[in-house]
């Protein structure tokens, strides 16, 4: 007898993924769903708390990219304390935050590529799961594993120096930052013994990108053929159209590159973006209001960012960007697995920006905070490693938060992740009654391209808690595989 499998709500980002695949009697896939069975209460329990607690409180949403939440909240509170949006901070305040953010990007992207995704490329999607993990890489390609670990460490050290702790620090405060760097700290990052210095990180980021490119050229059919579908793309861009991960205006393009959201001020995001609720998932489905639910969904993250921006404001990454754009004739790139390619270009860009910021004397300044006339409401956006992150707060006259709305990167990618899963399922499971481990990992690979928090992240590597259920049109379970 068939039954419905339910997984109890779990915490925000270390979430369990559940995939259901509906098949008809002829074993054609008719529907695939990625269920995010997580419940987050942050928007509720931040209510009543003093507003300056938000950057420290809400970053606990995530253990991989807490800096993104920390900074998005701080940016929203910049507006509330009258420091303006983006450009109102002191040079030291803004550059310290940027350094923190790009350090975060560097470590998070390194984590994703080396620890979470590289095993699929090195050992194959249907490779032996016993070695398809970072330990397998360490055993077979130790220099690559060391590179991944040390790149992550460098990014974490940048975060520690700017936020006070590697995870869940307190650096960004409303209107600025609570510390700057000392000369000794700057010297340590610029002139530290190999490999922990900025030059080495730029070189290693370039090597990682070269590694992926050689893999891509040898496996072009697989990479290009894996979950490829047209979509809209959304991200922040700098005023001049450059890639900017910390601040900018909201831009969206369609699959052909036509501008469908024209560099709007994100303080007004509610005029342009709505969220749809579907009964089978705790995660909402955002879309561009003027295009509607069917046509207005979009992708965020590395792929989207390199589709929306006009150029990358650092020389090595720009040169790579030009090669990357040439693959699609300058048009938006809609290949899911090119997300890794784009991510590594961003990693290189982050390393270059970190090096530039460390050479900027403002990073050691002592004018840390600016404030102005207090406002009741503020919106803060950053590009988190996995995509555009929205934080929106309203306070009362006693300085307590009365409303919070967070649209996290994963939420923005909800529809495209579902579509990716559906396409993979269609391709590999049509006509199959039995699910193999390789099939399950193919679904993981599709999800993993968007968001490592959902794939396994803080769980034991290679042990993603994924559940796949094959259900026929009478809702009878044909097969079910559970992978803890």
């Amino acid at each position, binding site marked *: 007898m068939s039954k419905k499998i339910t997984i109890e709500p779990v915490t925000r980002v270390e979430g369990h993924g559940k995939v259901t695949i509906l098949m008809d009697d002829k074993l054609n896939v008719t529907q695939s769903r990625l269920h995010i069975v997580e419940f987050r209460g942050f928007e509720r329990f931040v209510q009543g708390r*003093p507003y300056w607690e938000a950057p*420290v409180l809400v970053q606990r949403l995530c253990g991989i990219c807490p800096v993104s939440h920390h900074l998005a909240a701080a940016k929203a509170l910049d507006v509330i304390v009258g420091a303006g949006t983006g450009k109102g901070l002191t040079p030291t305040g803004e550059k310290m935050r940027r350094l923190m953010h790009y350090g975060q990007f560097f470590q998070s992207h390194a984590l994703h590529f080396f620890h979470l995704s590289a095993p699929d490329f090195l050992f194959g999607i249907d490779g032996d799961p016993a070695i398809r993990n970072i330990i397998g890489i360490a055993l077979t390609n130790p220099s690559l594993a060391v590179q991944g670990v040390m790149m992550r460490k460098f990014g974490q050290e940048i975060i520690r120096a700017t936020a006070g702790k590697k995870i869940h*620090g*307190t650096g960004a*405060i409303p209107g600025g930052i*609570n*510390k700057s760097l000392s000369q000794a700290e700057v010297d340590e990052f610029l002139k530290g013994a190999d490999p922990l210095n900025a030059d080495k990180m730029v070189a290693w980021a370039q090597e990682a990108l070269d590694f992926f490119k050689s893999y891509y050229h040898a496996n072009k059919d697989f990479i290009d053929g894996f979950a490829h579908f047209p979509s809209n793309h959304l991200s922040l861009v700098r005023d001049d159209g450059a890639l900017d991960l910390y601040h900018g205006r909201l831009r969206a393009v369609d699959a052909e590159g036509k501008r469908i959201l024209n560099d709007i001020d994100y303080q007004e995001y509610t005029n342009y973006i709505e969220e749809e609720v579907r009964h089978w998932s705790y995660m909402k489905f955002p879309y561009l209001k003027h295009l509607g639910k069917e046509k207005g969904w979009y992708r965020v993250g590395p792929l989207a960012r390199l589709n929306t921006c006009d150029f990358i404001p650092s020389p090595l990454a720009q040169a790579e960007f030009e090669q990357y754009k040439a693959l699609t004739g300058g048009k938006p790139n809609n290949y899911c697995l090119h997300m890794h390619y784009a991510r590594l270009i961003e990693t290189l860009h982050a390393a270059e920006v970190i090096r530039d910021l460390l050479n900027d004397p403002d990073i050691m300044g002592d004018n840390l905070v600016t404030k102005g006339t207090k406002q009741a409401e503020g919106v803060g956006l950053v590009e988190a490693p996995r995509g555009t992150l929205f934080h929106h707060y309203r306070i009362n006259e*006693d300085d*307590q938060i009365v409303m919070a709305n967070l649209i996290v990167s994963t939420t923005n990618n909800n529809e495209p992740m579902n579509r990716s899963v559906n396409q993979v399922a269609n391709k590999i499971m049509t006509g199959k009654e039995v699910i193999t481990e390789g099939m399950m990992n193919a679904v993981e690979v599709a999800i993993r391209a968007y968001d490592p928090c959902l794939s396994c992240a803080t769980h034991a590597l290679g042990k993603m808690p994924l559940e796949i259920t094959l259900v026929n049109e009478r809702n009878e379970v044909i097969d079910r595989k559970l992978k803890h």
Partner: protein
Amino acid sequence: MSELIKFRIDGTECMAESGTYIVEAARQNGIYIPTLCNMPGVKPKGACRICTVRINGRMMTSCTTPVTQGMEIESNSETINELRKSIVELLFVSGNHFCPACEKSGNCELQALGYYYQMMVPRFPYDFPQKGVDASSPYLIKDQNRCIMCKRCIKAVRDDQGRPLFAFRNRGNHLEVVLDEELGKQMTPELAEAAMAACPVGSILVKEKGFAQPIGKRKFDNKPIGSDVAV
């Protein structure tokens, strides 16, 4: 001047003026006895019991007991430390103390004592009481979730006539320390700073001060509580 007397703490011979409270006498001799409700310059009440020592087989609060000639005091023993640790644990479970998002973290005496006594997790069930936050003062926030009712704010923050600006309200389980409805109107930014400094936990917060003090510069970031006393 009072006469100097001799006494022993954990077998160590000490000297202090007659009539000195044990906690202060210990401090003068480089021995740390933890306190929470006790404040220098204010008459002690022995409310929190964290300074409990054993004298002649009896548990006594060292902030309210004067030393006497020849007194034998047991302080840093397994039994006493276990008792103090359980008091810290009880304080944690009887409120809503979420250190990760508390701006007093790193400067909080309760948190510092948790570390000092190596509290990994309380052995007692959490009470999760329903507590409120009073943010109506223009200068400070009173977060009842974190109040341990030590009375330090009541004792330390007073108006020109010596009247306390903080007061008890309600009784029993509903007892709480609040800003006095009338006298509290005299609150100033300076008094708010004094109140936050007096509060050993994160119950009294000066508005918009937030996390301005970076990690690494906070009171207990680099040395444990009691380091300024112990030799």
